[in-house]
């Protein structure tokens, strides 16, 4: 039996689509449609007579240019997968910039917590904040948007953690990652992300699939073999990401995600 899956995502869908294009036969139990749209365009859609149709020119162009369609027949699929869409560990790192909590290993080493720029928060406040941040991320918004239109299974896959290249090369926006690695807090951040993303997805009527373990290094980074050589979300999928990009994964990562989805749905993968 072939499972018909509609993949929806922002620029991070490119790695999954590229993996499929590279070795489609590996997932013979899956018949996919890839619907990519940049930024928040996936939300500029509505359900009309069982179809997901664009409600803006930008969304219509994205459907046409990137997937060659003008709508998605919601009844033509057995499941929906939302991929990327800022469901990332980055939101936990953002929280870590300004806050600490008692579960963190680094807290035990502090003699004067009040002198730290970051505020001490209760575990409950941290958990609720993390879930709240995630629930407002595009992936969860798209999941809720879909849930209002279909009863079919909806899966949200984790966006890849940032590239391990940051260990060797300076990149902006990852000071919290470096701080967590130095302080020994990375494993806690990783676990917090996975647990909060799971709950946020459950609340949205979806299932969260965490980042495949073998693609992760040092808890909060993605190993370079899964990041180097990523492509942008374009019609032909051949434009490389800028050299300094650290957030987009490559086709090898996309393949790991497809393996994960195949396993989740119990369909054949070679």
């Amino acid at each position, binding site marked *: 039996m072939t499972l018909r899956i509609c993949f929806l995502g922002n620029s991070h869908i490119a790695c999954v689509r590229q993996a499929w294009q590279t070795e489609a036969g590996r997932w013979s139990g899956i018949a996919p449609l890839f619907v990519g749209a940049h930024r928040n365009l996936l939300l500029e859609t509505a359900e009309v007579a069982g179809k997901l149709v664009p409600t803006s020119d930008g969304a219509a162009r994205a459907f046409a240019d990137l997937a060659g369609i003008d709508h998605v027949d919601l009844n033509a699929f057995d499941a929906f997968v939302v991929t990327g869409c800022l469901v990332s560990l980055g*939101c936990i790192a*953002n*929280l870590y*910039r*300004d*806050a600490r909590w*008692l579960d963190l290993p680094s807290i035990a080493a502090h003699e004067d*917590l*009040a002198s730290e720029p970051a*505020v*001490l*928060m*209760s*575990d*409950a*406040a941290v958990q*609720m*904040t993390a879930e*709240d*941040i995630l629930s*407002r991320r595009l992936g969860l918004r798209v999941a809720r948007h879909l849930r209002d239109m279909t009863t079919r299974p909806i899966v949200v896959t984790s966006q890849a953690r940032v590239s391990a290249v940051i260990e060797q090369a300076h990149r902006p926006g990852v000071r919290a990652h470096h701080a967590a690695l130095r302080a020994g807090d990375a494993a806690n951040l990783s676990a917090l992300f996975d647990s909060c993303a799971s709950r946020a997805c459950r609340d949205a009527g979806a299932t969260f699939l965490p980042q495949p373990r073998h693609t992760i290094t040092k808890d909060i980074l993605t190993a370079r073999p899964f990041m180097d050589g990523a492509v942008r979300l374009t019609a032909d999928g051949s434009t490389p990401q800028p050299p300094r990009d650290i957030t987009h994964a490559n086709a090898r990562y996309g393949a790991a995600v497809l393996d994960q989805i195949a396993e989740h749905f119990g369909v054949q993968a070679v």
Partner: protein
Amino acid sequence: MPHPYADLPDTAFWKKGVDEADRARFPGLYQPRLKLTPETRVATAGSCFAQHIGTWLKAAGCSVLDAEPPPRAMSDVLARRFGYGLFSGRYGNIYTARQMRQFLEEVADGEADPRHVWKNGHAFRDAFRPNVEPDGLGSVAEVLLHRDYHLERTSRMLRKAQLFIFTLGLTEAWEDIETGRVYPLCPGVAGGTFDPERHRFRNFRHGEIVADLHAIRALLHRFNPGMAVLLTVSPVPLTATASGNHVLSATSWSKSTLRAAAGDFVADTEGTDYFPSLELVTQPASGGPWFAPNMREVSEAGVARVMSVFFEAHGMTDLIGTARDTRDNEDDSDRESEPYCDEILLQAFAT
């Protein structure tokens, strides 16, 4: 011989100062004795109404201190639920002068006391701010750790403060007989268990409040000897009274006493002032009604009215627009905008 009233300003006469005055602005009603600029480092505390003052000052770009600022990634709604950003510290509502005095004594010299940790089911609460953790914490030790942290952060904040704005809310409180500490809420309302052998009702009198205000100022000067004190009295009526009087009468008593105490304290004390938010909202001559239909919560228009008089008196009227624009930038039409008021929990018993 001319009598003493002959040379008094218009504001001294009802006809000129009220009847024929611009009652949208009430010129001369508030003539600040204390200097406030956007650069003045301000700390706020007090009852529910104090939240409005802090919110408006912050939104106007004033330098309002925050001992425990919420993480940037935390939503405004969630931050408020956990007591962040409501006042200059995460101390929750401080309704009485006695509670303020005791809190400052604790910040200055004390440490968290396990006798003031309330247990309800599996949750433990800080009795002096029972609602900053909506679900409570996991143990007494965790409550004490967070309270010690809170005290230390507040201490550091107060050392920077140049102006302390304190909004007096109530004269009534419940006291722990053993320690003499008063709580913001009666034990049993939002945690803890009421024990008539351990807890007693207090309705503080004018003299006690004046003494507490002097003590507050002295304590604040231990953190910063030059710190000025601006008092206001919340116009928000009592949710409930344990005085035995009708709640309307108890409200009148409480607000009158607070107003008189604030006036006496300011009249006798350098580096202090009083801002008439109570008058601006509750005096019939002030127009209105500035209350919501339940006649208790001050309406948005009422708050705006009060703050416009405040800003104009301090020569910062041009910042008011900034305040509103900034506040309305929230991209969330469902956001909660009502002040967080512990005392409102008493309303639950009014069925």
